[in-house]
C-alpha cells in the first residue's frame, strides 16, 4: 500500500486563458507543497503532521484563497476558517471567523488536541489563539490588492464568487451559474 498524498488549491471557473503570470505562481506552490509532503512522508512523519504542514504552506501563499490571500467579505474584511481530522481516532478540530491568525489550520489542530471541543468561532477562537500563543498579524496582512479588486467587481455584479469564478465582463450574466456563490 505505502503512503499517498493529494492536495488542492481550490476549484471553480478557472479559465483556460489564465495568463502565465497568474498560473505559474500557483503551479510552483503546488509543486513545492507536494515536494514538502513527499519528503515528510519519506521521513516517516504522520499523516496528521503532513496535512497540517502542506495546508500551512498553502495558507502562506498569497495566490490561494486561505490565510494570506483570503478573499474578502462584503464588509471588506477577512474571516478565515479551517478544520482538520484524524481518520483513525476520528478526532477533529475546526475554527471560523478568524481575522488575525496566520495559520488557521494549526489553530484547528490545537482545538482538537487541547480542548474538549471540536469547533471554536470568532472572538472565542481569537481568544484561544492568543492563549495558545499562535502567530497572529494585523488583519491588513491578509488582504491583497487582487482581492480588493475582486470584491469591487463582485459588488459591481452584485454576486458572490467561488474561489476562481472570473468576474463577468460588462454584459449581464449569461446563466444562473455565473451568479452563484
Amino acid at each position, binding site marked *: 500500500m*505505502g503512503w499517498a498524498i493529494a*492536495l*488542492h488549491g481550490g476549484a471553480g471557473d478557472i479559465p483556460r486563458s489564465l495568463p502565465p503570470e497568474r498560473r505559474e505562481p500557483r503551479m510552483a506552490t503546488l509543486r513545492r507543497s507536494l515536494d514538502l509532503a513527499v519528503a515528510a512522508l519519506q521521513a516517516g512523519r504522520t499523516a496528521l503532521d503532513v496535512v497540517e504542514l502542506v495546508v500551512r504552506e498553502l495558507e502562506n501563499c498569497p495566490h490561494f484563497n486561505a490565510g494570506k490571500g483570503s478573499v474578502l*467579505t462584503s464588509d471588506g474584511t477577512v474571516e478565515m476558517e479551517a478544520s482538520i481530522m484524524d*481518520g483513525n481516532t476520528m478526532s477533529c478540530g475546526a475554527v471560523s471567523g478568524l481575522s488575525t491568525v496566520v495559520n488557521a489550520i494549526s489553530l484547528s489542530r490545537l482545538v482538537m488536541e487541547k480542548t474538549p471541543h471540536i469547533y471554536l468561532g470568532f472572538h472565542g477562537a481569537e481568544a484561544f489563539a492568543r492563549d495558545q500563543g499562535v502567530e497572529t498579524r494585523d488583519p491588513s496582512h491578509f488582504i491583497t490588492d487582487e482581492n480588493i479588486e*475582486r470584491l469591487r467587481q463582485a459588488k459591481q455584479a452584485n454576486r458572490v464568487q467561488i474561489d476562481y469564478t472570473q468576474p463577468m465582463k460588462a454584459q449581464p450574466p449569461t446563466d444562473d451559474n455565473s451568479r452563484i*456563490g
Partner: protein
Amino acid sequence: TVGCVAIDSSGNLATATSTGGLVNKMAGRIGDTPIIGAGTYANPLCAVSATGKGESIIRHTVARDVAVLMEHRGLPLKEAAARVVADVPRGDVGLVAVSAAGEVSMVYNTAGMFRACATEDGYSEVGIW
C-alpha cells in the same frame, strides 16, 4: 480554499482544509470547510477535503458521503468520489481524497481545480484542468 489528504507509511489517514470563503460573502457566513462531514472528513477508510460552493457542499454532505459509499456500498474510493461529485450541481464542487488502500482521487465538476498528488510507488501529478 486549500486542502490536503494523506495516508502515511503506518496506514494513518488525515485531512486538513482552510479557506477565506467566498468573495463578497456576508460577515459571519460559515462555509463547508470547518463543517466536519461537509468539506472535511476522515475515518479509518478514507480522508476527504472538498472545495467549491460551500452552501452546496454542506447541503450534500460531500465528504461524509464519500466515506458512506465506501463503508455501506463497498465502493472503491474513485467510484465513491465520482458518484458523490456527479450528484452535486454542476460547477459547485471539487475534492481530493485518499483511501486506506492507498488509492488517490482528485475529482471536480467545476471548470478546473488546482491539484497535485503523489504515491509511494512513484506516481505524481500536478494540474488545473
